[in-house]
């Protein structure tokens, strides 16, 4: 087998470099998406054991920063836990790092995927016990009215 010419070697090296950097960029951009929610979710899931899920979620949303800017720090998770009335912070801290919460998160993730939930917020509504995604493009009353009326009037 003939060895590559210098031109061939350089072109191969360039192709490898472009592919490697494209893979790194894709991994970085994909990983950055939803990193904040990945930190908050275990805390919220662990708070569910103490019947405080919505309190914790509400506090995270109230303190939400700009997406993907790293606003959700470990300090904020602790601060939210401490600020939630009636929440046992020590218990939550142990639980959110435990396997039970990990497995609960996996189950929730699977449920969300099978239901077609791929963004926050997502809305579901339906008639006769059948739920489906609610097609709204803005969080205002006219949008919801239109989407709900379409659903109600559909046969």
């Amino acid at each position, binding site marked *: 087998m003939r060895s590559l010419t210098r031109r061939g070697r350089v072109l191969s090296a360039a192709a490898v470099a472009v592919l490697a950097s494209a893979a790194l960029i894709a991994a*970085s951009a994909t990983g950055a998406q939803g990193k904040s929610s990945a930190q908050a979710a275990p805390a919220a899931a662990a708070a569910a054991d103490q019947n405080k899920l919505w309190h914790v979620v509400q506090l995270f949303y109230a303190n939400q920063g700009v997406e993907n800017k790293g606003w959700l720090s470990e300090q904020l998770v602790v601060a939210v836990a401490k600020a939630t009335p009636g929440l046992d912070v020590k218990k939550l801290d142990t639980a959110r790092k435990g396997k039970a919460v990990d497995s609960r998160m996996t189950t929730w993730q699977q449920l969300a995927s099978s239901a077609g939930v791929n963004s926050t917020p997502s809305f579901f509504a339906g008639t006769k016990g059948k739920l489906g995604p609610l097609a709204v493009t803005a969080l205002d009353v006219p949008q919801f009215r239109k989407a709900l009326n379409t659903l109600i009037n559909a046969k």
Partner: protein
Amino acid sequence: MSLTGVRLAVGGFALAAAGISAYLVTVHYAKQPIACFAGGGCETVQKSAYSEIGGLPLAVLGLVAYVALVVATAIRGELAAVASFALGLSMGIFAVYLIVVQTVVLDAICVWCLATDSIGLLLVGLTVLRLRLEPQPLLR
């Protein structure tokens, strides 16, 4: 510029970038504040969702890549020059991405990161220059 001069320049710049990356790795794992100048965006960038890939700090990846480039630069020959070029090109492309992330997405500048990114861009040209100056092997 002679081949030796280009190799010294590549090695010098790569060593400087490796030094900066080592500093960023140290402050990351020691959980120390970053010494930041001009605007103070270092913490924003370093704590952003873009500062890691798969849980590994980008500074670690940078350190490994720049050290690899120093090694490839220390080795003579065409194969080492091609390897340097591949490393330089991938660093340059990734540097453009990181500059866009800082300026457009995060709207915060980390001077240390910008320094290594600029070196990454400069290294594309220098490694291409080395490739051009490197003599071809007589036998294939």
